[in-house]
């Protein structure tokens, strides 16, 4: 014991040293991580700032880094150039219907795969998983041709109908339902005379609300941001969803960048608000879906 006394003083010193080092590294680490976050967020900040400036202010040296006073002017210019609220409504309409139908069909399908034994079940589920791996681009031309054949060009149904029972959604729901619904509960309901659909509606749906929330968020975001699908099937300005409308705005010869940035900011804002309140659910849903997939 006595012999260790000198050793322990150096030990204390080195411990203090290493604690200081630890704090220093930690401080530097925080600094670095926050710096990366600021660089990542800067384009969003820039978007909102530019939305309140005129075109000549946006492209000036030094660039404006605080809100300006051209918001009203930009708004007027935006409405002159595209039917902005109409386009926003189209986006909301498609995203809401896509979300509601996806939630219904995917939870129903996930329920079927999770809780029942039936012939060819494994084969069918394997097929479903394989379709997850087909690159989306492969389908773009046939997708257009089918939509044209059905007479759905320029109509919102072309955007939400084909994907409403998505393989990804069914897969996500199946995983959740299999781990959260008990067969005993279903049997009890059957004894009480419930039909299978009634079991779905009255027992399954209330118990899988968190998963429905996640899938709903992902579907809404996906539909809101979708570009290539609408680009291929929508033709008129009035039918455009927001991404297409913004693109025409940017492609105009006499483009007004103040108005473009305002339109872009307004288009991003709803998702930003959703993300502020539900970032955990969105992040976990997107990654859980892809990790398990």
């Amino acid at each position, binding site marked *: 014991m006595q012999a260790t006394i000198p050793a322990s003083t150096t030990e204390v010193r080195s411990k203090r040293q290493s604690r200081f080092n630890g704090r220093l590294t*930690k401080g530097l*680490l*925080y600094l670095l991580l*926050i710096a*990366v976050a600021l660089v*990542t*967020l800067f*384009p*969003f900040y*820039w978007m909102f700032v530019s939305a309140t400036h005129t075109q000549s202010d946006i*492209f000036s*040296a030094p*660039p404006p880094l605080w809100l300006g006073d051209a918001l009203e002017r930009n708004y007027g210019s935006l409405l002159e150039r595209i039917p902005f609220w109409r386009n926003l409504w189209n986006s909301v309409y498609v995203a809401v219907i896509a979300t509601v139908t996806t939630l219904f*069909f995917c939870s*129903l*399908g996930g329920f*079927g795969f999770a809780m*029942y034994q*039936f012939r060819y079940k494994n084969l*069918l589920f394997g*097929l479903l998983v394989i379709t997850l791996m*087909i*690159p*989306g*681009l*492969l*389908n*773009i*031309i*046939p997708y*257009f*041709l*089918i939509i044209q054949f059905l007479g759905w060009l320029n109509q919102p149904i072309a955007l939400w109908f*084909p*994907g*409403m*029972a998505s*393989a990804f959604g*069914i897969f996500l729901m199946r995983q959740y339902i299999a781990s959260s619904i008990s067969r005993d509960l279903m049997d009890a309901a*059957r004894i009480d005379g419930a*039909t*299978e*659909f009634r079991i*779905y509606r009255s027992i399954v749906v209330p118990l899988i609300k968190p998963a429905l929330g996640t899938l709903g968020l992902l579907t809404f975001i996906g539909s*809101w941001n979708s*570009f290539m699908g609408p*680009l291929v099937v929508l033709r008129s300005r009035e039918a455009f969803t927001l*991404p297409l409308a*913004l693109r025409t705005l*940017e492609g105009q010869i006499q483009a007004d*960048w103040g108005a473009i*940035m305002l339109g*872009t900011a307004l288009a*991003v804002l709803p998702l930003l608000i959703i*993300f502020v309140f539900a*970032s955990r659910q*969105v992040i976990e849903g*997107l*990654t859980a879906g892809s*990790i398990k997939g």
Partner: protein
Amino acid sequence: MSSPQLPLSVRLDRFQRRFAPYLFVSPFFILFAIFGLFPTLFSIYLSFQAWNPVQGLGTMRFVGVENFAFLLEDPWFWQALGNTFWIAVVSGLPQHLVAIPLAFALVMGVRSLRHPLTAAYFLPFITSAVAVSIVFITIFGTHFGVLNQLIGVLANWPLTAWLFEGIRDQLPINWLGRAPYIKPAISILVFWQFFGFNVVLYSAALMTIPREYYEAAAVDGANLPQRFFYITLPLLRPMIFFAVTLTIIGNLQLFDQPFLLTGGTGGSGQAGLTVAMYLYRTGFEWLDMGTAAAMSWLLFLVIGTATFIHFKFFGRGGLETRE
């Protein structure tokens, strides 16, 4: 109840019980048949035809493998393929090189700010490609773009000037107008939009590594870099493999960002034309559906081959056999 002839209600009940699961899973298969399987088969058929969709189905003409032969001799197709790979590598590789250390730092060192920081990195991923492309068009502006102004400042600041030695006389850079800069500009945007997704993937994987491993290594005197290289990286390998697979498949189909940054044209000298864009222009602007369908199958083949090579060298059969 025990009568041999069951009452109708019981028979109905048995019927619905038996067929309910089929009914529940059928919407996917019906929709897949209409919007997935049939179109895919049809596009195989289409790839052997010459057809302008505006002139109706009757004008379809069988041309054999002419569409494929044309593409294989088409300089634009090869250029688009080269561009696609260039952007895929230059935007994709750094995503992982940055995301892995960032995730490591987030999981090991930061507790209180972990979620807000992760959310900040992730935000670009859930933002529409159109919106972020528009914002980056202004950032990439030639004369008064934020990026050029920043580079201008850094190039003249004594501490950082040496970094910009090579490009100082190129300023201001016409990012989206001059051919050599278009691919880098697209890659910057794609990197920015997707690195956060990888940070989240890697964080999730890092969380599953037991703390005891690190503690044991610390007891043995391993410093932070050693712990990173000898514990984290090997255990992270399955996730790296998975995340890189997603990057390969996603990046080889890149469409939105290059399309928007180059105004739908591919930019000067088609320097920003990806295969997905070329496919779109062939089918929907030049109305040559047969060639476009053939191109989609060639791209499918390329993606399949790239994924196969990746699986072969970095999958279970490759690296894992060493263990």
